[in-house]
């Protein structure tokens, strides 16, 4: 049941996207998020979708692998859309008891849905094409200026990378404990939400205990291998921009410029493109 989470799971293959400097991928994901809010029209979303589709094609990652990540946020997506649909005031389309769905709400809900989906797909793509180690390397480098404000940048990066490494292990463990509890008659599928929450306790307690034990073991193993924080540490794979990274930055800013331009000409776009 936990195989569906692809966030934070690297997909091993070779592609242009895999070889790009992780910093540009972090920056690109962030700018892509910005672009989704800048592009406030159907035309803008089409451009964003095309851009994403092109990136997915470049990544060599099977599409179903990327789409799998969507399943986990489907519920969140539906809730967000419903909130937008019913809580936006405007021309009433239809009524469900005290809830009024408005035309503006429907448009907003669709936009929100598209934005969120593309955002999730975009960030999944980043984590699928970048090893978490390189990702945290990128974060560490990009956040380095914050060190002046005494932000423990290296430590945060290390914590992130360890968390990412242990997610699949803990998932597997959760699965194992769950099966063990089911074998003893535990019911995780009960309709009653209170009962279901209560049935999580015998799942979470052993999981937490084991997580702490693992943390303890890992800390020991790191110390045994001379880990003593970020000072005096060198990198096996230092980040260095190459030709393709500069090209990628050019493509990225081109895309962003297009999104901004589309926003300004929104009113002039023909037909539904301008919605």
């Amino acid at each position, binding site marked *: 049941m936990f195989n569906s989470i692809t966030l934070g799971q*690297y997909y*091993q293959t070779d592609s242009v996207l895999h070889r790009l400097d992780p910093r540009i991928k972090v920056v690109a994901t962030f700018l892509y998020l910005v672009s989704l809010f800048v592009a406030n029209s159907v035309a803008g979303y089409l451009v964003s979708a095309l851009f994403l589709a092109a990136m997915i094609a470049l990544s060599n990652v099977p599409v179903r692998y990327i789409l799998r990540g969507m399943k986990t946020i489907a519920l969140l997506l539906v809730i967000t859309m419903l909130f937008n649909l019913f809580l936006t005031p405007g021309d009433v389309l239809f009524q469900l008891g005290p809830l009024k769905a408005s035309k503006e709400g429907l448009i907003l809900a669709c936009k929100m849905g598209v934005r969120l989906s593309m955002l999730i797909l975009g960030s999944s793509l980043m984590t699928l094409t970048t*090893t*978490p*180690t390189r990702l945290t390397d990128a974060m560490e480098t990009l956040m380095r200026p914050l060190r002046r404000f005494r932000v423990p940048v290296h430590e945060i990066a290390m914590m992130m*990378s*360890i968390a*990412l*490494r242990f997610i*699949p*292990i803990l998932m597997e463990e959760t699965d194992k404990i769950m099966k063990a509890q089911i074998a003893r008659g535990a019911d995780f599928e009960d309709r009653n939400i209170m009962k279901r929450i209560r049935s999580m306790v015998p799942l979470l307690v052993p999981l937490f205990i084991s997580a702490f*034990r*693992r943390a303890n*073991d*890992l800390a*020991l*193993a*790191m*110390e*045994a*291998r*001379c*880990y*003593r924080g970020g000072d*005096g*540490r*060198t*990198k*096996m*794979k*230092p980040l260095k921009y190459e030709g393709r990274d500069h090209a990628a930055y050019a493509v990225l800013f081109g895309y962003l410029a297009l999104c901004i331009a589309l926003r300004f000409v929104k009113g002039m776009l023909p037909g539904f493109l301008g919605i």
Partner: protein
Amino acid sequence: MIRIRDLIHDFLLRDDEGNVNGTVRAIDDVSLDVAPGQFIAILGHNGSGKSTLAKHLNALLFPTEGEVWVDGMDTRQEDKLWEIRRRAGMVFQNPDNQIIGQIVEEDVGFGPENMGLPTEKIWKRVDEGLDAVDMQKHRLKSPNRLSGGQKQRVSIAGVIAMHPHCIILDEPTAMLDPSGRREVLAAAHRLHDEEGITIILITHYMEEVIGADHIFVMDRGKVAMQGTPREIFAQVEQLQALGLTVPQVTLLGHMLREQGLELPEAVLTADELAEKLGAIYEHSH
């Protein structure tokens, strides 16, 4: 290489508020020496103090009393701490809880990175480490996709990359299947035979210590027996009293000898027993 003198280690017991309300003596007056290039095995059942002893060799724990010397450095000297940890590398029991890198080669590079080596040197060390345990072809894989034995070999590679003089393997096979156990032991023996690295293997499987130069058997924090494998394996009753499972071949040899057959005091392998029994058979006809 390693010199332990009158080592005592007490663990503090705390109550719910964190006040010390007692101590447990995990190591009780142990003295032992390991010469460079030796293959040492430390045997003992659970709770015998063998893992605590291992952590002293890597300066992860410090003596309550007595002293531990690694390559002429006292583990209590704070300025030598990192050098001691580099020279006496450690491989732990659970393969999942000691791999830090998301990719095999990155994990092997973790130690050299911590040592502050320049990038090219790190790559060279990683290559050496992977070659030493024959994991070169898996270097780009995620550790999660490896078998237990392969994961332990990656951990060994990570230690080799730091150029240790000695490797301490703390129950490296306890969580592995039989083929994984064989892989890890073969890697340890190869490092000892070909690279001349001192190996200290801590285990509770007697089968694994047959190839060792010298064995220490621990019980309740003390060294209960020591000697060559043949000397140790000859004392079947004492071993069983210490809670160790004597290999079946040795046990069979021991029982036959008690029945009056002229067998040596300790039989280590099935081949050896077959050969000896064959000779007795020939002789009697």
